[in-house]
């Protein structure tokens, strides 16, 4: 009995994505801490391994060796559902991302829609986490997470729609191929406003500083994951970093030409630097800007990003008819 080649392809993709998500969590934690150290003029992790390179792995093992504590008043079913619900859709998001000409889990017509649909589940996970832990900080964090994610999803959609209008497809591979290898052929040049809106609302969607109000340490101890210890916290953490990678990958596919390279040198070696450039940018602004207040956060979205996104979409539709 032989395995169907399509099934084999899917299983290989699944294993590759699992390895990629796990590896990325480690690499990004290291980059984040080293970046923070660099910006704050201190060495960052230094002791474990050369330049502290094994530190994230050791931290992960340490997290696994801690007790999973649940508060006595919490709702046990929802409490344990939340971290799993946060982690479960993550792998699926990588299914449609084209990392290279042959390095795509599956090419489908509705790639963008699939990512947007399943990335939305994370909001539910954060809400359940904050509510079920029967902690006032958790509850406040959950309410903030919902208000914020709900708000920043719309400019994100509008920015994506502007690109979808110009390319006329929702398929990531076709969008990549619609752009050229050189920077002046990228969608970023034709849609600069959409790119800026996308990056800002992506930072908001990922709950990253300066928009990390749901887990604002100075106000809410840890927000929605206050009560989560050990791997319960680890899963939220890993999911958050994976969502960052997904967002950066989507941005580099939609706006930065994806895997295309000059002189026919297409491949993941062009894709990964773009993804990591965006991730480094997110790390950079996290350690540069102070946290905004919640009213500011919502006002930026409703008063600036949303009208700008709508106008941008209208202008896109107008200029498409003009030329």
């Amino acid at each position, binding site marked *: 009995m032989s395995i169907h080649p399509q099934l084999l392809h899917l299983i290989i993709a699944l294993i590759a994505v699992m390895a990629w998500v796990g590896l990325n969590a480690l690499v990004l934690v290291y980059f984040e801490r080293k970046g923070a150290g660099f910006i704050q003029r201190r060495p960052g992790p230094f002791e474990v391994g050369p330049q502290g390179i094994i530190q994230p792995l050791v931290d992960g093992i340490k997290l696994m060796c801690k007790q999973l504590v649940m508060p006595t008043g919490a709702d046990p079913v929802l409490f344990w559902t939340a971290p799993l619900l946060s982690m479960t859709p993550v792998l699926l998001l990588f299914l449609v991302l084209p990392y290279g000409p042959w390095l795509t889990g599956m090419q489908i017509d509705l790639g963008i829609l699939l990512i947007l649909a399943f990335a939305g589940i994370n909001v539910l996970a954060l809400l359940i986490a904050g509510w079920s832990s029967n902690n006032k900080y958790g509850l406040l964090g959950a309410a903030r997470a919902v208000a914020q994610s709900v708000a920043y999803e719309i400019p994100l959609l509008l920015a994506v729609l502007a690109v979808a209008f110009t390319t006329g497809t929702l398929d990531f591979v076709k969008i990549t191929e619609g752009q050229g290898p050189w920077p002046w052929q990228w969608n970023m040049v034709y849609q600069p406003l959409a790119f800026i809106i996308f990056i800002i609302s992506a930072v908001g969607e990922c709950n990253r500083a300066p928009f990390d109000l749901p887990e604002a340490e100075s106000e809410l101890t840890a927000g929605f994951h206050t009560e989560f210890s050990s791997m319960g916290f680890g899963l939220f953490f890993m999911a958050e970093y994976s969502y960052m990678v997904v967002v950066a990958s989507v941005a580099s596919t939609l706006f930065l030409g994806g895997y295309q390279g000059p002189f026919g040198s297409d491949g993941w070696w062009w894709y990964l630097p773009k993804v990591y450039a965006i991730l480094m940018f997110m790390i950079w602004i996290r350690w540069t800007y102070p946290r905004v207040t919640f009213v500011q956060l*919502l006002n930026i979205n409703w008063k600036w990003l949303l009208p700008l996104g709508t106008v941008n979409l209208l202008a896109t539709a107008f200029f498409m008819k003009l030329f």
Partner: protein
Amino acid sequence: MVFSWLHLAIVLFLLGGLLFGVGPLLLAVLLGPQAKGGDLGMPFECGMRPHGSSWVKWGISYYCYALIFLAFDVDVLYLFPVATAYGSTEGWLPFVKVFIFLFVLGISIVYFWAKGVFSWPRRIKL
């Protein structure tokens, strides 16, 4: 309903994601200590004993934004099919239609803005 490769892929990847979450949790159960008693089960509210449960009625003044969100999110979803077809249309009529659609959406923002929703009052009078 036809069960296609995409459905299989979604189910497979969701199961993989579930395993990816359950695995570390089980490891933590196996490897971690099992301490009990004392104040271990007390919710962490900066060390003080919590005053009552957190499952109380409290005013979320965000429901208005939830309404705008629903309006926008559902309506923007209608634009995805439009986006795929818009490039191949002829004449200015499609643009006028898109314009009317987005204009009506934009009015909702203007309406809420004029009602003072974005100055974040405690109670919103609509």
